[in-house]
């Protein structure tokens, strides 16, 4: 237990039966920590499988007219790569894994509000993922219509066989899993907070997960409905998305992106939350502009539901100025976030441990991806670059920046809490530099090759196209990134085989999860520190610098420099 003020709020350990152990525990546990770890391991496994597919894709594109894989296999690879990364890794890693584990701890709760529903969410996620991979075992192969499954390409005529059906069932199962997790997260945050932990004392990560949960509840049901309509078209003879029967193919795009664009922020907001936890702790300062960050998150949530058709500018069926204007507006709250992260570090006592290094890498990558996103929000630029590698580079910078760089910042940050062990700092840094260099070497050339006109989703290009050199650079970058992840696996292996005890609060953390043991006991807390500010554990461990003793927030962040504590 960390150093805790002696006026603790007694926390009654709830009644529960004796816990099983071993495999049966893994199978039956409704403890959010066990389920959260299951989610983390499973989503990371899917991440490595999808990453391997990315390496195969890049190998195919290394040379012009290459025949490393067939065009059909190539289409299956990029479809399942994208689907796994988005549906099975980036989302579930954040809201099923990290949030599941951390949120009850951050709000002083003994568990999630609905533990058995939480367990069901995991099993639907796991079986949904297996269903997606089963497609490779069918005679027709896996789905090959891209992760967006545009109609009429995804209709039975153009994509026959069991593989596409398995994809539809898989995404529906994972969608239900996400909806259940969102219900659990929202209810837990609204009803199970510790006494004194008002909404405006919640950690930013918790705030972001609340908003993410609301966005999931808005958007995931639309996708599920669209999938049912697509299945009906494929098997029940309806013509909802087929022109031949009077249907409208663009309707699929509207329904899909009404899910798909909030989904982008469902994948980004949790990671924004993670770096907002990491940066203040490793800057030895409170987060700058707490309320600004909260309102920026809410603004992003509201705006993200009104920008779906910016993916459809080139269809000629959407109201360009409306969707362009709203898309450009999202840059404002996102810019506020970037500003507050930099301002939090400004004149802080920075401790460049692996989590902070990853966070800074995230800010760099995300800012580049965000700026190209602003460019793409302008229809004239989108018309020119639509369906080229420019777009591929843009969304990989945003999503790799978020889910991987910020995600691993969070993973390294909370790893001691999850395991009670410390990772190897040197290997963590090596992991960062390899994937940061590899990632930029992979995707920066793709901007250029996209502007030169290389379309996305093509298995081959000709030598005369002039794409060869940049594609080779990009492929080398992918290999460097892959080596970076081998370093990560080695780091985890070493930490497991030769553990270094981390202690309960190795980073001198601020929020409640650092006020319990590492790993935490069955129902998380035996007692809680008094909650009088946004940083209860900091207050308890540093009563002379407690937040609740400070005068009201100053208007200029430069005056915060005095608060940076250097006597670490």
């Amino acid at each position, binding site marked *: 237990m960390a150093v805790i003020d002696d*006026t603790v*709020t*007694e926390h*009654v350990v*709830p*009644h*529960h*039966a*004796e816990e*099983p152990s071993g495999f049966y*525990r893994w*199978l*039956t*546990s*409704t*403890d959010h920590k066990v389920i959260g770890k299951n989610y983390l391991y499973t989503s990371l496994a899917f991440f490595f499988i999808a990453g391997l597919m990315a390496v195969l894709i890049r190998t195919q594109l290394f040379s012009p007219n290459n025949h490393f894989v067939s065009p059909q296999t190539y289409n299956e690879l990029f479809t399942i790569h994208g689907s796994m990364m988005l549906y099975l890794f980036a989302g579930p890693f954040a809201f099923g894994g990290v949030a599941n584990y951390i949120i009850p701890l951050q709000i002083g709760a*003994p*568990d999630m509000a609905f*533990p*058995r529903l939480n*367990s*069901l969410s*995991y*099993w*639907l996620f796991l*079986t*949904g993922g*297996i*269903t997606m991979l089963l497609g490779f075992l069918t005679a027709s192969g896996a789905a090959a219509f891209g992760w967006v499954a545009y109609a009429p390409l995804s209709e039975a005529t153009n994509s026959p066989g*069991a593989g596409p*059906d*398995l994809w539809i*069932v898989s995404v*529906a*199962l994972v969608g239900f899993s996400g909806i259940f997790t969102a219900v659990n997260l929202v209810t837990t945050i*609204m009803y199970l*907070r*510790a*006494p*004194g932990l*008002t*909404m405006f004392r919640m950690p930013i990560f918790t705030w972001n997960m609340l*908003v993410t949960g*609301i966005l999931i*509840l*808005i958007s995931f049901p*639309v996708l599920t409905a669209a999938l049912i309509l697509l299945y009906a078209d494929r098997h029940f003879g309806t013509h909802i998305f087929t022109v031949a029967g009077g249907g409208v193919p663009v*309707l699929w795009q*509207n329904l899909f992106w*009404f899910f798909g664009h909030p989904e982008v922020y469902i994948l980004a907001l949790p990671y924004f939350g993670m770096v907002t936890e990491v940066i203040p702790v490793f800057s030895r300062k409170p987060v700058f502009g707490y309320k600004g960050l909260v309102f920026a998150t*809410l603004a992003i949530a*509201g705006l993200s*539901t*009104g920008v779906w058709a910016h993916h459809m500018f080139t269809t000629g069926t959407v*109201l360009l100025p*409306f969707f362009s204007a*709203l898309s450009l507006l999202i840059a404002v709250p996102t810019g506020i976030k970037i500003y507050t992260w930099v301002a939090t570090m400004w004149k802080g006592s920075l401790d460049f441990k692996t989590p902070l290094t990853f966070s800074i890498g995230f800010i760099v990558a995300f800012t580049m991806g965000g700026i190209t996103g602003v460019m793409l929000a302008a229809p004239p630029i989108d018309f020119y670059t639509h369906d080229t590698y420019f777009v591929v580079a843009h969304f990989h910078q945003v999503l790799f920046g978020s889910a991987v760089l910020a995600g691993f910042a969070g993973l390294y940050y909370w790893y001691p809490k999850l395991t009670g062990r410390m990772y190897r700092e040197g290997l963590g840094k090596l992991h960062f530099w390899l994937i940061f260099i590899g990632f930029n070497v992979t995707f920066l050339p793709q901007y250029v090759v996209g502007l030169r006109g290389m379309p996305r989703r093509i298995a081959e290009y000709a030598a005369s196209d002039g794409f060869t050199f940049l594609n080779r650079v990009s492929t080398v970058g992918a290999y460097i990134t892959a080596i970076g992840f081998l370093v990560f696996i080695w780091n985890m292996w070493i930490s497991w085989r030769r553990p270094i005890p981390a202690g309960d609060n190795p980073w001198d953390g601020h929020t409640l999860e650092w006020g319990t043991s590492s790993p935490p006991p069955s129902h998380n807390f035996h007692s809680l520190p*008094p*909650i*009088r500010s946004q940083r209860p554990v900091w207050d308890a461990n540093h009563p002379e610098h407690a937040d609740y003793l400070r005068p009201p927030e100053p208007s200029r962040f430069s005056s915060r420099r005095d608060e940076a504590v250097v006597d670490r």
Partner: protein
Amino acid sequence: MKTEFRVYTGIGIFILVMLLVYFFWSGDGGNSILLFATVGLGLLPGAYLGWWSRRMEPRPEDREVVEPGGVADQLGAFPTHSIWPFVLGVGVFLTALAFVFGIWTAVVGLSFCFSAALWGTLSSRRGGLI
């Protein structure tokens, strides 16, 4: 609970304004219905939370100052393990596969689902056998 009310209602009102602008500018009824449903997703829970927040004392988690030890014994029973979510998950998985491989997987899957629903419900009555 007032903040929760404001969050939901704020999102609902924001999307309502967006809906009105979009509908009168584009005349697109189909997508406006999606936005209209989203307004409901914001305003319905917002109204519920607002209704309750006016009729109840601030909960301990809504108070700025809480006396130490003054809120003990507020937590309920939390299960630590149950096999039924796993059984239900496998049942749903097998039932879903029927949409690809035929009805026979649903026969097995639905039996899992019904078993899990029955025993899962019985095992949680009175908050006892959890």
